[in-house]
């Protein structure tokens, strides 16, 4: 695991590829990962989001909670095996009925990820595999590692946690330079946006402040 040293000055690839992979840097970053994953929808796609994972995943991390993910119609498919979850993911992507399909699946083979990539293109959807670790071959266009970052300051109450922030590190991208971006949850849309742009105090300052404490995760 290579810790991000500084935030990248490249343009954040906001538009999702058909199939991406994202993992949580540590188990406690799962909520940030889920927020990141839900934000990888295209624009204002109103189709529902399907979340599939083996049952143990839900026991470990909790269940997605609608009020906390406002604005996203959810379908949940807890499965018995990882193979079933992969099948579910493929069906959902291919059907064209969902905007985004998330699958917490480990050990998908290259051939399986190729199928998913193809299915996502066919259904004009975005597929996101959430494995435990980013090893092995995969047809995913981008591989992300997500870690929680200390929240932004709440203008009304400095002692309270403010808008959520996280570091999205692009570990590998096809035709893209790896990099890291700090994203912040928007109060209005509840989606992630690039934190530094709107903060207005420049990349260097945030990169400098963020690097020593939170990024080593």
């Amino acid at each position, binding site marked *: 695991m290579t810790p991000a040293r500084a935030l990248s000055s490249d343009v954040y690839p906001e538009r999702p590829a058909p199939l991406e992979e994202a993992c949580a840097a540590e188990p406690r970053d799962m909520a940030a990962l889920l927020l990141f994953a839900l934000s990888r929808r295209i624009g204002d796609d109103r189709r529902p989001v399907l979340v599939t994972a083996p049952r143990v995943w839900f026991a470990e991390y909790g269940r997605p909670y*609608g*009020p906390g*993910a406002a604005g996203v119609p959810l379908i949940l*498919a807890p*499965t018995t095996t990882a193979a079933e979850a992969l099948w579910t993911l493929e069906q959902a992507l291919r059907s064209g*009925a969902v905007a985004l399909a998330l699958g917490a699946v480990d050990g998908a083979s290259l051939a399986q990820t190729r199928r998913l990539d193809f299915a996502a293109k066919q259904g004009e959807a975005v597929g996101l595999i959430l494995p435990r670790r980013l090893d092995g071959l995969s047809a995913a266009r981008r591989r992300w590692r997500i870690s929680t970052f200390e929240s932004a300051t709440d203008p009304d109450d400095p002692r309270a*946690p403010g808008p959520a922030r996280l570091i999205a590190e692009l570990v590998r991208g096809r035709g893209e330079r790896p990099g890291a971006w700090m994203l912040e949850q928007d109060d209005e849309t509840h989606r992630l946006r690039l934190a530094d742009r709107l903060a207005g105090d420049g990349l260097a300052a945030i990169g400098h402040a963020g690097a020593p404490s939170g990024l080593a995760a």
Partner: protein
Amino acid sequence: MTVWRRSATRARRPASPPDPALDPQNPFALILKNSRGAAILHALNPAARRAGLRRGQTQADARAMIPQLICKPADPEADARALTALAVWAERWSPSVSLDPAGEGLEGLFLDVTGAAHLFGGEKALLAQIRDRLAEAGIPARTALASTPGAAWALARWGEAGGEGAIADEDTVRDRLAPLPVEALRIDAHTLAQARRFGLKRIGDLYPMPRAGLARRFRDGAGVGLVQRLDQALGFAGEALTPVRPPPKYRAWRTWMEPVEDIEGVAARLAELAADLSAPLVRDGQGAKALTLTGFRSDGGTTHLSVRMGRPGRDAAIWLRLFREAGLGRLELGFGLDALMLTADAVELMTPRQGALESEAEAKQAESLAALIDRLTARLGEDRVLTPEPVDSWIPERAERWRPALGRSPAAANGDAGRRPILLLDPPEPVEAIAELPDGAPARFTWRRLSRRVTRADGPERLSPEWWRPRPDDRQVRTRDYYRVEDDAGGRYWLFREGLYGREFSGAAEERAPSWWMHGVLP
């Protein structure tokens, strides 16, 4: 008017088979305890009957007569289960199969084959087929076909030797029943004893009697029952039978001479059945919401597979796909299936879509979503494809209920995304927390064996218990104070303290101190 229905009735021996190791030459009996605790003969094999034993005798009496009588306890519940299973199997000949309510050692099935006999090559051929199939499955049976359930019952059990397919239609039923004993009218022992005393031995003896006089002559109104049974047998009175499974309105059904032994064969024939079933649905403007495929095994068993759909449909190709995903490959074929039946268990009127109200794209989108949910449900099961349903409650875990997605459309919950966790732990997990003030925010807490220092906290958000709901267990429901906290690693959590200092906890020994719980993780 009388309802004329033709029914074939089969009587069969008690369903508990004797131990195969036992020689049929040995007298054998099944024993049941009666209400006074005495052991009574419940069922006998032919050897025991030949030796002069009869049903209802006490075991002690029987043993005195035949010391070598082999006895085993009867299991009436297993018998009933076996008979019900056989009734389902018999649906291959008729959609409406009823268990014989007479029961008690004369168990049988009623098959309403009105208008169906021609499908099997006539009534004689039908009876022969029923007997052959049952014999193949190792079930000795007697069959008869008559214009009323009562007459069929009588002929099957009391007809000429062997009961080899007696057939009586409206014209002959009177003559066919005349020589049978009055027992054949399904009357109770009390009525039977009185009829014997009057010298009424055969059903024919009752024909010349005036109905009203006959009914009056018996004590305790037993005569009314006798007359009613007689009328039912002759078709002057109707008789309602309750089928084991409600007959489906839409049913497609095929049989083959050679049993189908592989899944591919079943799948090919299922396609034919699906086409058969969808035709009448299209005609009536109906769509199926639930389908059951029943395979009739040559060994006397049945195998089932059901699929459900969120929207009514009649596309045979979609049905096939759903059946495949529901596990067509896992059907138990045994030694092969010789008949398949596809029934529409739930149908609904297909309303033409209103093109003006919703855009074409939206309608298409909703349709593909329903199809996806159907497919996932068929493969994973109904309780594995879920969608949240908002519930009017402020208790967080109760505010959202996960329901089967089948037949629902997922809707976005409205909530306060910044203040509610994105992952909810249900049930909440206990944490050890240290707060600077008893009713303040925590300063440190240990969750899942990891100690965390709180750097920022927001709260409390006080949620009172819903006192109007019954308590889930003996646990006292108390007020919760929720805090959003952030630890020094940047993790954000949703903690609550259950119980208020002062109002709900005064420090008395028997009271439970307020405790901390982790309810979810915020992004």
